[in-house]
């Protein structure tokens, strides 16, 4: 280990004056295991830093052929390795002037070891998790009702939350939020999505009950949770069976298909159906946002190949879920589309040639 005399000698050769320097000198050396590569550096944002200081853990998730992601309990980050042309040394025992406090009168040596070094680090970027797979897994065995008699449902193709965490590159809270969004429910510890016909049957039972008890729909607190799914289910059933529907005919049939007193408004169908106001007569067709590609460029390609020009109001429900944390649909359109005026209305078309 270096001695004070050796350090002083070096200072002299380097023509540095002791009186210009603070009393504490750190003699740095490489620790025995410094080259072992056991350490990695990971760049953090404020949220993650506080997360770690609170003692919470993080999980890296990914298949061999996927890009790895890092998940906290409620956020997902893309993980990449960033190279630098510099050398980064980690020195646990080294203090900075503000930490050294009172200056001792006499020169002092502190022997500090370099425990490791790196020239690359893990870079994290917040991203929108890929959750489309969730519905796909749930659709492998939709729930069709409780088992009849003594037969039990086979446990294959049924998933618990822990199963999802092993298959989906997302955080627990993001998965839970998505499960709510797609109206999945937990039955006997497994997450299930209701088979469409069974769902319709249930809605039918409930509305029949409300009807038979002569409860007014506007009084029943169920209205908020019943009106939308009921109307939507009816709309979907009608639209599923035809490529296009005459808009005014559809609106009539739709109103008649739902229980009396229940509202049917076109704005309820945002993200489920698309109205064409340029055709004569005006038409409506089924277009569900969940049937469209998950990836941003592929999504825009699909939308522009079915319709060349879109008004903001029409395209918004189909790109809303692509927006980043603080991004608006307007910003997204500026990035991926070109705008022009048509009949006094601003419309968007593709920036690149679209394969039809």
């Amino acid at each position, binding site marked *: 280990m*270096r001695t004070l005399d050796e*350090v002083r000698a*070096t*200072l002299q*050769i*380097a*023509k*540095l004056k002791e009186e*210009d*320097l*603070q009393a504490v*000198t750190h003699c*740095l*050396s*490489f*620790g*025995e295991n*410094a*080259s072992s590569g*056991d*350490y*990695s*550096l*990971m*760049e*953090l*944002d404020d949220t993650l*830093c506080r997360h*770690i*200081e*609170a*003692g919470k*853990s*993080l*999980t*890296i*998730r*990914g*298949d*061999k052929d996927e890009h790895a992601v890092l998940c906290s309990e409620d956020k997902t980050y893309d993980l990449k390795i960033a190279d630098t*042309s*510099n*050398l*980064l*040394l*980690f*020195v*646990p025992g*080294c203090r*900075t*002037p*503000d930490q*050294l406090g009172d200056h001792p009168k006499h020169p002092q040596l502190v022997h500090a070891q*370099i*425990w*490791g*070094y790196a020239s690359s*680090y893990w870079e994290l970027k917040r991203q929108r998790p890929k959750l489309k797979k969730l519905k796909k897994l749930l659709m492998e065995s939709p729930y069709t009702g409780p088992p009849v008699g003594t037969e039990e449902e086979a446990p294959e193709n049924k998933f618990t939350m822990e199963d999802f965490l*092993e298959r989906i*590159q997302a955080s627990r809270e993001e998965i839970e939020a998505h499960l709510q969004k797609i109206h999945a429910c937990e039955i006997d510890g497994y997450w299930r999505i209701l088979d469409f016909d069974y769902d319709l049957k249930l809605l039918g039972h409930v509305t029949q009950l409300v009807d038979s008890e002569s409860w007014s729909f506007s009084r029943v607190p169920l209205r908020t949770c019943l009106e939308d799914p009921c109307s939507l289910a009816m709309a979907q059933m009608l639209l599923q069976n035809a490529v296009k529907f005459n808009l005014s005919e559809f609106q009539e049939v739709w109103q008649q298909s739902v229980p009396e007193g229940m509202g049917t408004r076109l704005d309820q169908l945002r993200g489920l159906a698309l109205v064409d106001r340029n055709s004569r007569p005006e038409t409506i067709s089924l277009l569900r946002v969940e049937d469209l590609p998950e990836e941003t460029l592929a999504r825009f390609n699909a939308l522009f190949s079915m319709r060349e020009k879109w008004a903001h109001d029409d395209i918004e429900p189909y790109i809303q879920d692509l927006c980043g944390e603080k991004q608006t649909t307007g910003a997204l359109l500026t990035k991926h589309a070109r705008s022009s005026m048509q009949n006094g209305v601003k419309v968007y078309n593709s920036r690149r040639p679209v394969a039809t």
Partner: protein
Amino acid sequence: MVQIVISSKAGEGPPEWLLVELQGEMVSRQNTGLAGNLMGDLHYTKEGVPVLIVGHHILYGKQVKLEKPFAVLMKHSGLPQDDEVAMESSQEKPTAYSVSALIKKKLIFKTRPKPIITNVPKKV
């Protein structure tokens, strides 16, 4: 799919280490590797400027607060221990990481190293 956990110790949070950043590479004189070798002397001027003497060079640097702090992760490999029976190797412990420390500031030495001339030849 693989799930690798990065754990942090609950309690007061991980310790804070200092990062020293140098431009370029560092090689040991005899190419025997860096481990166990002396690196240099780190001084601070009265104004708090860090000065590093490495080999024949003086490097002047500055203290910088990191815009994005680093976590220092230590890898715990999932390989079975040597003394375990070969048949048990199918039960490998998964690879895991733990947070050893956080780094919130660094000393960065960017100025060109000033060579220290030790032997000035006498004028003939």
